[in-house]
């Protein structure tokens, strides 16, 4: 068993993963990630548009993964956090460029572009966003 996927599976998510693009509902003024065609609050009365997040936010919660899943073994231990973006939406991401013990709830962070993982020996090399402390 493997987690390798067809190229199209990742290709269609490039905008979200490379540019931190999500959605904004103009009816209720709420933001969410990833992109969605339906606003969970307004449903069909919503007016959902694409939104490029500023990439600035704060750590909402965090943990250090020490037992890594397939494809992430080489990165362990690594920090995974829920980031609350300045616009109000939240995302899950790794926090890098700091020691695990330096990550605290409320810490300001900003987005950066990094390698995420390799899909096996012959699969794709996946890139996307991670977050780092604001210096």
């Amino acid at each position: 068993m493997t987690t390798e996927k067809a190229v199209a599976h990742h290709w269609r998510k490039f905008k979200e993963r490379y540019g931190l693009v999500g959605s904004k509902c103009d009816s209720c003024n709420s933001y969410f990630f990833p992109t969605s065609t339906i606003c969970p609050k307004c449903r069909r009365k919503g007016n959902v548009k694409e939104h490029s997040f500023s990439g600035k936010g704060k750590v909402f919660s965090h943990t250090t993964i020490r037992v890594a899943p397939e494809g992430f073994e080489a990165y362990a231990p690594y920090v995974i956090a829920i980031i609350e973006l300045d616009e109000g939406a939240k995302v899950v991401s790794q926090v890098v460029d700091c020691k695990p013990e330096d990550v605290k709830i409320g810490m300001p962070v900003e987005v950066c572009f990094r390698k995420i993982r390799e899909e096996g020996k012959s699969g794709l090399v996946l890139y996307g966003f991670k977050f780092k402390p604001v210096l």
Partner: protein
Amino acid sequence: MNRDVAIVGVGMTKFGEHWKKGLKELITEAGVKAVEDAGISGKDIQLIVGGSMSSGMFVGQEHTGALFTDYLGLSPVPAIRTEAACASSSVALTTGTMAVQSGRYDCVVVGGVEKMTDVYGNLATTALAGAMDRDNEAHFGLTFPGVYALMAQRHMHQYGTTREQIAMVAVKNHENAMHNPNAQFHRKICVESVLKSALVSDPLRLLDCSPIADGAAALILVPAEHAKKYTDTPIYIRASSQASDTLSLYMRPDITTVGATISAVQNAYKQSGLKPEDIHFAEVHDCFTINEIIASEDLGFCKKGEGGRLVQSGETAIGGKIPINPSGGLKAKGHPVGATGAAQAVEIVEQLRGEAGGRQVKGAENGLAHNVGGSGSTVVVHMLSRNRK
């Protein structure tokens, strides 16, 4: 509700590493035990509903509905497979309950199975990660211990829950499992051993995590008005309730609570007419220790944020005000994911019949089962009772 539903037979395998048993042997053992316990024969069975989370990834086998019927030698009885991650077999129980309530079926076998130990290395972790949002959580390297660690971190931050209090859940559940012959672990642990075990995902350590296991469990459902034909001590399903939430943890406004637990339990209290103080014990989803603390709050056994102090007070031990996980819970009884919900119901039936031996909750008349899929994306609550009304 239309017809009231009763459980007249239960059966389960021991939970743990079953090197000599595959899906077939596990299903057959639990199914035959339940059928014999009810005193029915194969020709009485009209429908099978069986839960399995990920037999495809664990053993490469799908189509487990027909498989259940085949293995039990019951063809052409129709079968439904239910899947809701770790709540798969509780959804089998809600589905089977609906089938009897509706009047369409008079004798239904419900159950669940998982064979998890046939995969090597971290493939089990990868399979389990399918219960979260693969593209937006697992993609970044999040694991299930990680999901619950994020919840624990917030709970400690918001309510001052201590690392020691979280560890006490594991200590209590290991103590309870000492008296459960079907439990995976028969080994007492102490707070210090939890705090010294290897870090898996900070702040959670190895002894905060439920183990990978193999196992199966099954129950026989009939209309309440037929129940006395089969047994002198039918156990009645007073509430059968299910709720959903976002697949991703990060999308929820508050991660110190599981919204679907609150939705499901409120509906269950309404269905049954019972109140939190009428519940004499509960089997709750302690896949990770922190989740028992969160569940004890969300189910109404204490105020929000008081779950750590509740376990510390000893009131959730057998003999306390509200014993939680007398079976040993997922932590010490074991957690073969697709079998867990059905096994919780089996434990409650044994307790209510007074057959739980050294872990018996004395005088228990009403018990609650709380089963979570993923990070709380599916929650199922059942309330079972010795009393029909």
